[in-house]
């Protein structure tokens, strides 16, 4: 429960309001696996849950991609190299990468949701022979809001993966797709009955994506979503992130979609 001091090694601006921080531990700590999150503490401001957006393997710095939407995330995004932050974790469940191996894999990310999924994409592409087809479907607000653009281009250049991008709106001259991320699902090169899906993005987007995947024929019990609620303590004590019978920080944030779809549609929760 005690934060471990980490030094900011680098800070890269991804979009107008999103930065990727690389953090070097000043003590020994466990590295988060794909799908897990850390609690990042901006001293004197507060603490927020941020998923890992980097690799589990290796001994490089921790990587977290942060969107500046409130006081704490704005403080984190404003830290220069050399600044110190507190880190608790890792917490939560992982993307079921071993479980999804052997079949087709479709990864659907919306907005900042690409950050928690990046380790999963890297894992699948690094172990390409473990999967059938690999499809990465990305939605964003505008072309300027796309994360990891050069890495996306690298994935897209591969001959053994499908990468498709759509945005909600764009200026004239944009040659890519404009429309909902769900419109990418019918065209994904997958054998639906033999496919697994990992989904991360705003909750309403995930609701529509799960429906579209099921309509396409992907079994509901082969779909996983990463939930985000008001996580405070990260260890299941404070109850702030309760969603029906679950505590997102303790039981998630990665859940089987089958356990979440009904809860996501209950307005009172």
């Amino acid at each position, binding site marked *: 429960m005690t934060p471990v001091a980490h030094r900011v090694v680098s800070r890269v601006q991804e979009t107008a309001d999103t930065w990727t921080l690389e953090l070097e531990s000043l003590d020994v700590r466990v590295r988060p696996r794909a799908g897990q999150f850390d609690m990042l503490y901006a001293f004197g401001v507060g603490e*927020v849950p941020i998923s890992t957006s980097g690799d589990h393997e290796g001994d490089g710095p921790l990587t977290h991609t942060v*969107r500046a*939407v*409130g006081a*704490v*995330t704005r403080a984190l995004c404003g830290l220069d190299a050399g600044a110190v932050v507190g880190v608790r974790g890792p917490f939560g469940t992982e993307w079921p990468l071993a479980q999804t191996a052997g079949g087709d894999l479709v990864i659907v990310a*919306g*907005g*900042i949701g690409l950050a928690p999924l990046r380790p999963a994409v890297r894992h699948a592409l690094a172990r390409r022979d473990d999967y059938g087809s690999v499809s990465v479907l990305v*939605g*964003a*607000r505008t072309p300027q*809001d796309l994360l990891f653009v050069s890495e996306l281009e690298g994935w897209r250049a591969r001959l053994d993966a499908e990468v498709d991008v*759509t945005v*909600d*709106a*764009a*200026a*004239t*001259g*944009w*040659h*890519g*797709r*404009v*429309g*909902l991320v769900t*419109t990418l699902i019918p*065209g994904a090169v997958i054998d639906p009955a033999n496919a697994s899906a990992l989904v991360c*993005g*705003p909750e*309403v*987007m995930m609701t*529509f994506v799960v429906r579209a995947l099921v309509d396409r024929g992907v079994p509901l019990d082969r779909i996983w979503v990463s939930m985000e609620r*008001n996580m405070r303590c990260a260890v299941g004590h404070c109850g702030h992130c309760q969603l029906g019978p679950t505590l997102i920080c303790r039981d998630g944030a990665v859940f089987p979609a089958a356990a979440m779809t009904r809860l996501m549609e209950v307005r009172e929760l």
Partner: protein
Amino acid sequence: METLDELIAHAPVFAGLGSEDLTLIAGCAQNVGFDDGELLFREGEPADTFYVVRRGRVSLELHTPERGGLVIDTIEPGEVVGWSWLFEPYVWHFDARAAGPLRAIAFDGACLRGKCDDDKELGYELMKRFAQVMIDRLQHARVRLLDVYGGVGVG
């Protein structure tokens, strides 16, 4: 190489229509091509043609003095571009532009409207199919109004 009749039969909007109807529709159709950036039609112009995309992508654009041109939707292979030819005052509400080299089937809307007036069954069938296209686009537009990626100011 597919004939025009076969291409039309494979377009989802015409799927399942009888050969007689398809022949009638093909009588109003022709293959067309556009270069990258070329306009298919422009806002305010008479809506006398619609398209089914064969290869490439079409951008639907709106222009405002403050923000310039804005792509509000894109149309992909197999999908329909334009329904204003079916409804008065038969005027386009958006620009449609080729986002890259484009191959499409162009349909003479006035010709097809005339055939629909003569053959009410075909007219009703086409009206149902285009209504479905409109409903799908309307639903997508409504969800995008949520601005789901906009985020909320917490944390």
